[in-house]
């Protein structure tokens, strides 16, 4: 048998394949996505003293996300006149792949990790930098005014908040001395969670990653009250579902990265298994980010960019200085 075919067969028949398909991989992402869509709507509704989705099942409409998926799947695919079909379809597809590749880098529990890359943290952040390109292409391809404005806004916003994000993560690298995400968790096993020495860094990280996720205080690219969902405006039902997928995966992946970097990942007392600890921490972060959405009003684009390049950049440099003194000034913390 030729060698490549053997390799493919070996790949398909391994437990690794199961990992991709079932647990950290696709099916669990889809189920969690549908669940959190419902959860976010319910939470926002309760904050605003509304009831929220309640019809889809007895338990408070918990199946609403699945109902939405089924509804969107059976919509007609309309591609607007003059749109660039290739980029119009390929950018959400590629964005979904990129989002899933983010989750492959996260250590969910000891050994439960799809790709234990030596440079896990920069690889994660580098994959995140791919998304402005795709959003810009998606906005451009629709040949319509709102999507193009949204795509350009996404470009400016995500590039402006990229640098404070990198620099806040730099503090963690300075203290742990490794770029490997599993290595960072193991460091915290011996030295305590990094949220204590890196409190400023953690705050910066969550603010900038909210901007990267385009969620509500920073959701200018899809501001539904001014530019009609921005770059997503022209997407028909099934493709709109594909566009919403990466948005959720990014939230999930950033929350998972936050708990890996600052909250000790899967560490915790051995009463409950590590993976439950991991999900508890991740869900706390997800709920916090969802509460941002129902708490803060949207900012303006020029204020957003200016603050990103002045306040946040200054604070992240202050954070680097703090990390520097922790490592060099006080030997062996």
């Amino acid at each position, binding site marked *: 048998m030729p*060698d*490549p075919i053997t*390799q*493919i067969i070996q790949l398909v028949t391994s437990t690794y394949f199961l990992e991709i398909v079932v647990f950290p991989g696709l099916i669990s992402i889809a189920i969690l996505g549908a669940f959190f869509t419902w959860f976010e709507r319910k939470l926002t509704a309760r904050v605003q003293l509304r009831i929220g989705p309640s019809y889809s099942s007895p338990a408070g409409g918990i199946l609403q996300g699945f109902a939405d998926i089924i509804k969107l799947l059976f919509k007609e695919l309309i591609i607007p006149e003059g749109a*660039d079909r*290739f*980029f119009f379809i390929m950018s959400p597809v590629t964005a979904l792949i990129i989002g899933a590749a983010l989750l492959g880098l996260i250590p969910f529990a000891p050994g439960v990790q799809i790709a234990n*890359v*030596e*440079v896990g943290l*920069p*690889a994660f*952040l*580098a*994959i995140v*930098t*791919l998304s*402005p*390109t795709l959003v*810009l*292409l998606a906005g*451009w391809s629709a040949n319509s005014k709102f999507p193009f404005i949204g795509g350009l806004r996404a*470009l400016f916003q995500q*590039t402006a908040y*990229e640098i404070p994000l990198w620099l806040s993560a730099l503090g963690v690298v300075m203290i742990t001395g490794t*770029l*490997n995400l599993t290595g960072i968790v193991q460091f915290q096993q011996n030295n305590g969670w990094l949220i204590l020495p890196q409190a400023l860094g953690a705050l910066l990280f969550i603010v900038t990653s909210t901007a990267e996720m385009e969620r509500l205080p920073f959701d200018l690219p899809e501001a539904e009250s001014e530019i009609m969902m921005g770059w997503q405006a022209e997407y028909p039902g099934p493709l709109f579902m594909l566009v919403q997928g990466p948005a959720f995966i990014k939230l999930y992946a950033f929350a998972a990265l936050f708990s890996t970097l600052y909250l000790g990942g899967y560490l915790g007392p051995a009463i409950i298994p590590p993976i439950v600890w991991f999900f508890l921490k991740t869900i706390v972060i997800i709920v916090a980010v969802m509460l941002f959405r129902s708490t803060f009003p949207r900012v303006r684009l020029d204020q957003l960019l200016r603050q990103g390049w002045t306040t946040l950049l200054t604070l992240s440099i202050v954070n680097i200085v703090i990390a520097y003194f922790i490592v060099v000034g006080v030997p062996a913390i």
Partner: protein
Amino acid sequence: MTDLTFLALATVTVASAILALEARDLVYGAAALGITFLGMAGLFFLLDASYVGAFQIAVYIGAVVVLILFTVMLVGPQLGEPPLELRRLSLLTALLVALLLGTAGSLTSAAAFPGPDNCGGGCDLTRLGTTLINQYGVPLEFLSLVLAAAVIGALTLAKADRKG
């Protein structure tokens, strides 16, 4: 033996490099250039230079391709592709490309450089920062001057009012 991953990455890289130059629409060209860079990052990962690979993605695709796309979308409508002018230089180029491809062919058929393996476990990061700071500190300072000059120069060039 030929590694499947390598073969796929090399094919994608070379094909999209050709596409980047030959695609009629410049936006497609820029996107193809991005895919070339991505394939190159994959080749870096195969060579155990994962740090360089990660920053290849971040700097080239995250920054350079975005800037290229922005410029293409800005100037593209008023651009119009000028027709190819192959007559003058085609012979020279054809010869040169043939020469290079010939070199490539003879390289692959010649006695192979041994492919070093068993580099698992992060040998790619050993003393990267130490080498950078201790041996290449002075070039680093010059590079910061280059960065400063690039920011100031590019902004001054792109600025709209040109009174001075």
